[in-house]
């Protein structure tokens, strides 16, 4: 397609796009810049300093919350990705009765508003008498991570040539061997991107975690929320910037890897 056709330059389209990107990135930039402020104010610039980063690193509460977040995200990712991989393999092939309903259930966590999932899960734990803790957070996270892990794996499976597995069978591979030598390695990029999505989503979740977190089971987003409620501070600027930079680096890396593979 010739994208340089002057007829296709619609008035106002370029400025709007620029406005869009400015709107998207200026707040993030401002936050990161302000995190290097040496003064006591969260918004008035005084001098450059890394002071608040050392405050964050030496705050035992923040370190504990970060550890909790990592523990939950790691286990939720492992469990959700395993379940999603099995489910994707099961859903592959000729359609069977009830399959549409089953895909609906697999996608349900994406459809239900977060606050509704949060409330329903809270009442469920109260109903079965399970005490709120890191464990209840983990259960809730596995549930909403499943579709994020499932979708890329399923997409990868769908794009896979079924003749490759057939060829393996022709070459006298047992179904088990054909799976581990052919299907699984081909599926690996899908599994990896599914796991990565699940990990990011779990690390970032606030609403559901907030509802099903017991006393003492604070994750990083829950910690940030309660600090914001107490008032903005340069400390929140610093911890927020750390989180932002880590996730942007994470996404940029996956983008870079994805570009190279092509």
């Amino acid at each position, binding site marked *: 397609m010739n994208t340089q056709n002057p007829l296709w330059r619609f008035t106002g389209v370029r400025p709007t796009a620029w406005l869009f990107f400015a709107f998207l990135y200026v707040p993030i930039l401002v936050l990161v810049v302000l995190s290097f402020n040496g003064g006591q104010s969260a*918004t008035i610039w005084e001098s450059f300093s890394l002071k608040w980063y050392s405050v964050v690193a030496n705050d035992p509460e923040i370190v504990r919350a970060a550890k909790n977040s990592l523990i939950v995200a790691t286990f939720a990712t492992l469990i959700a990705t395993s379940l999603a991989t099995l489910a994707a393999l099961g859903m592959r092939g000729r359609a069977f009765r009830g399959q549409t309903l089953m895909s609906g259930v697999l996608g349900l966590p994406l459809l239900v*508003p*977060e606050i*509704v999932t949060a409330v329903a899960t809270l009442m469920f734990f109260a109903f079965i008498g399970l005490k709120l803790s890191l464990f209840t957070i983990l259960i809730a996270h596995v549930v909403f991570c499943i579709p994020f892990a499932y979708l890329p794996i399923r997409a990868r499976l769908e794009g896979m040539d079924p003749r490759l597995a057939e060829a393996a069978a022709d070459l006298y591979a047992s179904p088990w061997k054909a799976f581990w030598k052919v299907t699984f390695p081909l599926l690996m990029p899908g599994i990896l991107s599914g796991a990565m999505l699940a990990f990011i989503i779990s690390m*970032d979740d606030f609403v559901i975690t907030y509802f099903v977190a017991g006393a003492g089971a604070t994750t990083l987003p829950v910690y*940030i929320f309660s600090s914001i409620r107490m008032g903005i501070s340069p400390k929140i600027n610093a911890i927020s910037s750390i989180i932002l930079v880590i996730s942007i680096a994470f*996404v940029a890396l996956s983008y870079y890897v994805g570009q190279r593979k092509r």
Partner: protein
Amino acid sequence: MSTLRALAERRQLRRRLLLTSPAMLCLLLFLVLPLGIMFLVSVLVPGDYGGVKWGQYSLEAYLNFLYERDLDDALVFNTDYLQIFQRSFWLSVLTTVGCLLIGFPTALYLALQSERKRNLLLFLVTVPFWTNLLVRVYAWILLLRNGGLVDSGLGIFGLSDGALGLLYTDVAVVIGLLYTFLPFMVLPIYTSLEKLDWRLVEAAFDLGANRFQALKRIIVPLAMPGIVAGAILVFIPSLGNYIIPELLGGGKSLMIGNLIQLQFGASHNWPLGAALSFALLGFVLLAMLLYSLRFKQAAGGGHP
């Protein structure tokens, strides 16, 4: 021979169901069952200090949407919640319209770039999605508060005396919602525009259409599935959003999400919270159903 094949097929089906079952069980047990319990709670009588009184059924929670009991136990029309529904609805509509106004030209701009540049820009659109929402909303607190950057920025041009009082208003909530959901509008519209056969647009120009006519009669109609998908993806999460009205609305600009949360906190009225959640969920499912009936079929089979 045929029975052998049927047997093999049955065995394969059983294996496939077995593979799917762990994820299925997990979702049925920890999502579908809780949603069922939520419905049950919504028709129960609230306990005195949170929780519910099991076995005592009542539709009171749904009546509470519009009425409240006065001291004589009579139902009195009460518009408090109705106002919150209305506010949620209008703020979400405003957000959707705003997203469309900024999102459509942006998607058009993206679709008309060279492939290399397009990929980079698309990446930039998706980055915020992968960063923490709470943190990004917090950034807006820094910008919008009195004496924050928006105030001082406008002050330079003499448009503000440094105290606009933007934070904790409906305006702040809409800005936050716009900011959060704009990529959800841009991406589906971009997807439609990318698939668009630009020769149709060329043909329109050849037949003497001006740019506006080509846009109105060719591009917008063909991008319609993307526009509708984007509108749904923006409107529905806006409606039930909790974080943004909580942090940028500051308890003054409540939306449905905050109302639900309140019932599990200060108000101790679980049935009302459950009923509100159930109504919200019903609304979402209805919207998705209408969308799939209207657009998935029109798009033609083969892509369920």
